[in-house]
């Protein structure tokens, strides 16, 4: 996936590798996320073959895989796991098997209230990171958003659909702190600034992720930025040009050439 994005990028432009750096990293984490998804799908398939419904204990492998992901991608991953579509499990109506990186003592399991009657009900089916893979059948990177459930930070969530026998049964994913993404794109943004060019990286939902303009703040809506209307998308950046496989629905805006 990372290679595909690189091939689509216009390498003649300054800063053209900006998104490639992110895609490379995220592509590697996606492999680990997919492992979690595959283990979940395999458990569902095994239960199906055995002619019995899927139960929460069948997902025991997720814990190890999430721990592996958090260990091997400690530079990016702040949390990882899988959530199940309502009704996918026989013993619980909803299920979140999610671990977050805790220094020293190993991954901690996330505890949230999944009772729809509760005032504190955490309805993960309403989140962008759940809905996008459900809608498109493809991995996506949601955010940035304030994650007050798990990381308590400005966060992105990489997520991929989990299917069994062609049916959507949940989402496997990984939380990535916004600071890590900012660090990855900073060299590219600086390079463009040295070349005298504005650069604003925008999420699929129209939020500024990072920029090299002091007035264009991360988290603001690009449509309400007075400085941005003159900027145009940079060719080959952020769009799945020629590949159709980029998981980043992000756009890099810059001055017209």
């Amino acid at each position: 996936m990372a290679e595909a994005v690189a091939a689509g990028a216009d390498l003649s432009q300054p800063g053209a590798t900006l998104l490639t750096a992110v895609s490379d990293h995220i592509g590697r984490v996606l492999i680990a996320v997919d492992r979690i998804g595959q283990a979940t799908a395999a458990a569902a398939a095994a239960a199906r073959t055995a002619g019995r419904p899927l139960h929460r204990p069948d997902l025991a492998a997720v814990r190890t895989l999430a721990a592996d992901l958090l260990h091997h991608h400690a530079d990016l991953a702040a949390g990882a796991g899988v959530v199940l579509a309502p009704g996918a499990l026989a013993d619980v109506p909803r299920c979140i098997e999610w671990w977050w990186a805790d220094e020293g003592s190993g991954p901690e399991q996330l505890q949230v209230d999944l009772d729809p009657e509760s005032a504190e009900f955490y309805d993960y089916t309403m989140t962008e990171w759940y809905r996008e893979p459900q809608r498109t059948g493809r991995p996506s990177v949601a955010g940035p958003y304030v994650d007050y459930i798990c990381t308590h930070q400005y966060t992105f969530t990489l997520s991929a659909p989990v299917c069994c026998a062609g049916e959507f049964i949940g989402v496997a994913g990984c939380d990535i702190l916004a600071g890590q993404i900012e660090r990855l794109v900073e060299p590219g943004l600086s390079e463009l600034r040295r070349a005298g060019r504005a650069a604003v990286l925008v999420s699929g939902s129209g939020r500024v992720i990072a920029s090299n303009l002091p007035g264009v703040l991360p988290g603001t809506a690009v449509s309400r930025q007075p400085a941005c209307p003159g900027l145009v998308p940079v060719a080959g950046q952020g769009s799945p040009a020629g590949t159709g496989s980029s998981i980043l629905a992000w756009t890099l805006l810059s001055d017209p050439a």
Partner: protein
Amino acid sequence: MSSIRDEASLTVTRSLPAAAGSGAEPPAAAPHGAAPHRPGRAPGPASPASAELAVTSLRARSVFAPIEGGRAETVARRLIQAIQLGLLLDGERLPAESQLAAQFGVSPVTLREALAVLRSMGLVQTRRGRGGGSFIRAAAEPQRAHLERLLRLMPPHELRDIADHRAAVAGMAARLAAERALGPDMAALREHVARLREAPATISGRRRADARIHIEIAAAAQSPRLTRHEMDLWSEIGDLVWLPVAEPDVAGIVAEHAALADAIEAQQPERARLLAEQHVAAETERLLSWRLGLLAAGA
């Protein structure tokens, strides 16, 4: 990795109030019913599985932080608050009196006075002999009498100061949300306003739904810090907000939240800020008025 480490150390200071998000139902809610704003990452209250729990040093830092001026009422208030917020759990054993007095920075006599207040409220039970000590007794739903006692113990200037802090946080969060909220943020906010409208007619039920709205606004402002401040403030004042609310006034308070959501959706930052500030001011006035009533009644 460094930022994650930093975050973990921050957790120490924030775990207390955040863990209190489940506030009103300390022992019952602790094992599974974690509040959405309870940090998955932060160590919550000690496992209630064991009947006699030692207070962890982590929580001790905040609950038992030294008291300035060293007064029994302040000690009592802090302990009552901690119990109401679920920071101290049912069955939990308090540290030895001498140790606790030292941690609060008060004399053993003052501490005993404070414990007497809690004992009279039925919030602490003292058992003598081997395995004895002072144990927390917490009810699932905060009792009005306890909240009123807590409110009486809070000096008005402190209620005013908390209100100032809340107005600053809620006002700024509302303003920034009006500038930054996108479609999905508004959908979440609307959802939680609807949840407040339909919330169970209990102090804790409404308080949770209310807190969630303000946390969603801060999240829509794209600010983890403002979000944390909202969470901390809500765990600090928690159930008090809904204590003085008469049933006929509930609809009006829900309407205040709806109007705030309208201003945010209409991208009117100044109006959103003003509405949020007025909302906090109205709550504070209700609290102060209720408190004066309690004092007048000699409760």
